[in-house]
């Protein structure tokens, strides 16, 4: 039953593949960004999982406790979350501009319009 103990890593794999699939399969720009977010979230969960120690507490010195959870990956992932927010904002802003320029955010419709221009 060892694989059950690693269930958060299974969650990571499922989230990652779901997000990745959405990014590739969806033609809608907003849905692509949603997929990208799910994909990135899986990595956040991954970092948080790898730092967790069974029975470990917060890294504050307490009498009688010897097992601490590693705080560093949590701090790292805070940075990565901020980066993710910036990326989402950038992606959404681009989607808005695309909508203003083409009147659509469906990839195939946009490509069809571009081909007409060419």
């Amino acid at each position, binding site marked *: 039953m060892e694989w059950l103990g690693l269930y958060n890593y299974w969650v990571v794999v499922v989230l990652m593949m779901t997000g*990745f699939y959405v990014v590739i399969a969806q033609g809608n720009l907003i849905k692509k960004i949603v997929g990208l977010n799910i994909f990135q979230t899986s*990595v956040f969960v991954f970092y948080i999982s*790898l730092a967790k120690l069974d029975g470990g507490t917060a890294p504050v010195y307490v009498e009688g406790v010897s097992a601490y959870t590693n705080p560093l990956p949590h701090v790292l992932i805070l940075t990565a979350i901020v980066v993710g927010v910036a*990326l989402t904002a950038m*992606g959404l802003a*681009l989607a808005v501009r695309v909508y203003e320029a083409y009147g659509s955010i469906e*990839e195939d419709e946009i490509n069809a319009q571009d081909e007409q221009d060419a």
Partner: protein
Amino acid sequence: MIEHHLPALQVLLPLFAAPLLMFLVRWPTLAWALTTAVCWATFLVSALLLEAVWAGDPISYAHGGWEPPYGIEYWVDTANALVLLIVSGISAIVMPFARDSVEQEIPRDRIAWFYTAFLLANAGLLGIAITGDAFNIFVFFEISAIASYALIAMGRDRRALLASFTYLIMGTIGTTFLLIGIGFLYMMTGTLNLADLAERLPAVRDTSTIRAAFAFIAVGVSLKLALFPLHLWLPNAYTYAPSMVTVFLSATATKVAIYVLLRFFYSVFGVEFSFGVLPMGYVLMPLALLGILIPSIVAIFQADVKRMLAYSSVAQVGYIILGFSFASTLGLMAAMLHLFNHAVTKAALFMALGAIVYRIGSTRIDAMAGIARDMPWTMAAFVVGGLSLIGIPLTAGFVTKWYLLLAALEAGLWPIAVFLLATSLIAVIYIWRVVEAAYFRERPAGAAPVREAHPALLLPTWTLALASVVFGIHTALPIGAATRAAEILLGGYP
């Protein structure tokens, strides 16, 4: 005192200047002047850094006084000092060119924002090259990437928006893969410092976790450096971006990503692991060869010169990766040399195109028919850059092709030597198409008269065009730097 803090200044100058520009929205010329000053200052810093590490030992800079490996370390040796010099040098030379080009292509009220994004992209790229911390590489990758998405989206054509969006999706997948790889490395070694990683990896490297880390980092960074077949974002992004952005990104963005891959493969994982335990040579070499051949052929059939040069950039990445895949000092040195020479050459070519866009507003080959008579200096610079791209003797491009050839022969792979000569001929074809149109065709009937681009555009273009000739004749600086860089990368961290 101040020279002690040069590694920090290298990144902090553009990073801190960027938000200041936001106060200059109403004075675009002032924003340009400040950006130019900052770019030249960073160029000076990187020149001083290269000089310092050329003669002496590598520089280790502990940020905020936190000793590595606990704090974030900036690490400068000849290998990344060369990359820093390329990035800051190109940004310094492109700035005088940028003033008119940007004024024409970007709405006046957005010029200051444009330069803000440019400085952020610059800071990000310099940061990737200088940092000695794996997670820091990821953060700087994203800083430069997000700024580049904004820069590309400011192109005049509405297709720039979708090009930027595609780049955003593919770039984010690339950097997220890198992040996963770094997570695996941290899991096994408990460190993020690159030198420290190199020290601790051998003990744990025969685990599937480390192999997975290697795979994620290799694929993630390959996406960023546009290794064939992960290059799909590049042609559109370069074609529709504003002229000045194309010059800057084509010369620096993919180069810095290549440097990161070199650093991980050679210094962190080590040659023995990357090319012995995991046969990366057999993966990279076919991809490099296909990456030279297919985009070169595709380039021939492009109606738009900017897009043609973008495909040629993918092919040039192939040449660099080819040198890289030999896993020999000579091959690595050829790769580092081409990093430098191609940055100079391609920037010169894209600048000449930028000057043409400034005058005729188009980069289509039909629109360029007969313009050599009216814009002789611009087209001459294009021809010089084109010759260097092909690899004619007495140009920088020849020097790298020569060393690639030697590296291929040294590895006993003479078919690759033949292949190199054959693909150079493909470059002759696509450069010739432009030359033929510009020099030997008549201006289309009814076309508006064209004047020569003015000196502010011509001077930077010619500086780089001449540089691609000078570095083909006086090869001491690039070859010396590239050789030392190759030795350092192969030697790993001291």
